[in-house]
């Protein structure tokens, strides 16, 4: 029998208020710029931003690439760095959680590197790899690896001790316990890391592009600042926000599909 859906009635104001608040926000923003309360050299009205958006889809001025190209550069960098950090970080975290030797060897270095904000690596990566793809991928990799390692480590550590004892009683080897018990029980935490790492990667991508880049959404924002076009800055910020939100949503859906049935 299918579950019966329980409908909770919300009072009318609670349904309407969110829409009102968003509309009021955009309305006030538009009004403030239109009436000159905030000069248009400081902030662009939403309508101007939409116009710029349509324009930038095909126009390469003033920063040398269309919006699509910028977005593509950013997404490419983000995904290569993100993929690499998952590839290295999750196994490393899992091993660190279970094998004492790995933990002893990797933890001090990890603790040393962890508090350095990834953006601080930018000058060094510029020295080492130039301002191309490699440098940014490196920064994003560093940014994404920290939550991956921590979450998979904690995930293994939080394995139910009773289960481990039981496996020991039945004569399972260390490796068997790790493979068949610790990894599955760490999975929800690991998936938590996917979201977290993505946020970190996306934030630091923007930072990397603000400082050292020749294309990408962060570069679009910088150029908007350099030519004093607030509409381009706001457009860049909104694009970064929206694309981050979309990628986050996709990962959330994948997570739901893969983790269906595992209690969180």
């Amino acid at each position: 029998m299918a579950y019966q859906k329980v409908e909770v009635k919300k009072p009318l104001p609670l349904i309407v208020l969110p829409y009102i608040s968003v509309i009021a926000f955009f309305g006030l923003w538009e009004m403030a710029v239109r009436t000159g309360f905030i000069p248009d050299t400081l902030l662009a009205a939403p309508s101007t931003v939409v116009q710029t958006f349509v324009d930038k889809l095909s126009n390469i001025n003033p920063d040398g690439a269309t919006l699509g190209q910028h977005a593509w550069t950013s997404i490419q960098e983000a995904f290569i760095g993100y993929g690499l950090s998952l590839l290295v970080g999750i196994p490393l975290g899992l091993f660190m959680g279970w094998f004492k030797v790995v933990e002893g060897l990797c933890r001090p270095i990890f603790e040393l590197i962890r508090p350095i904000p990834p953006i601080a690596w930018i000058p060094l990566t510029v020295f080492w790899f130039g301002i191309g793809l490699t440098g940014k991928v490196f920064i994003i990799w560093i940014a994404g690896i920290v939550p991956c390692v921590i979450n998979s480590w904690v995930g293994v550590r939080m394995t139910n001790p009773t289960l481990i004892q039981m496996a020991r009683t039945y004569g399972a080897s260390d490796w068997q316990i790790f493979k068949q018990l610790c990894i599955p029980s760490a999975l929800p935490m690991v998936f938590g890391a996917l979201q977290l790492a993505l946020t970190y990667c996306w934030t630091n991508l923007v930072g990397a592009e603000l400082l050292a880049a020749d294309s990408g959404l962060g570069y679009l924002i910088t150029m908007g600042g350099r030519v004093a076009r607030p509409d381009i800055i706001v457009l860049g910020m909104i694009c970064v926000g929206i694309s981050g939100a979309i990628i986050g949503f996709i990962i959330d859906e994948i997570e739901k599909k893969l983790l269906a049935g595992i209690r969180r």
Partner: protein
Amino acid sequence: MSNNIANETIDHSRNKEAWTLKRVLTNTYFLNVVSLVLFFLLWDYVAKERIFHDSLARPLDVLNQIITLVSIKYAGSTLWGHIWASTQRVLIGFFIAAVIAVPLGLFMALNSYVNAIVKPLFDLFKPMPPIAWVTIAVLWFGIGETSKVFIIVIGSFVPCLLNAYNGVRLVEPELYDVIRVLGGSRRDQIFHVCFPASFPAVFAGLQISLSVAWTCVLAAELTNSRAGLGFLIKRGMDTHKPTLVLGGMLLIAAAAWLTSQGVGILEKKLCPWKRSIENL
């Protein structure tokens, strides 16, 4: 191996084990020392062999650079001045954000009308990385202190608010029931259950905010500033001095670590009821 989590009852009596080679080799402290020594040796080797040409400094050179900065003024102030410039910005921004965001988050979770008004706006701004605000902050406030503090406030606002909000929402409903059975009012529920139970989450949010704040101050200082640790790194980048860059990185890591320890101590003092995961 991993006895401390595999056994729920831990045998505290110490029985002496013989110092076998295997036991020495798998000792945690021994491994820690080995890994750090290897790390610095590798770093030194890579720098000495000039694999990255002259773009990586040897560890001792970096240390020397830091010591020099302590005594000699660089760009108008000594090292302490630069550290203080950055720390001051972080603390001001962090404080403003915490003072606004935590009460707002708690309020949002307690009152559905406030939630209905603020949440959609918050969701609009949430996915925007704080660093993306750097450019527009400069446009609005110039390159002085205000723009840097503004970015830090924006950056630390989100985790503070989110954690305060979720902390209240994830309070176990049984606790409310207990208060209700004991005849408490709504006020008692809020002050005796809601706030204490959500404090650990609030503090976790503060910790995240602090690390975000350091990232933000760095981004702001790298783009434009005349003092601060980010300025040292930027100057090192412009004049191609890897010692300065690496020194700045290490100092900012140390400063970030120290402030987060500070918040950790405050947390232990203010909410001792927090249950923490062992060993992390």
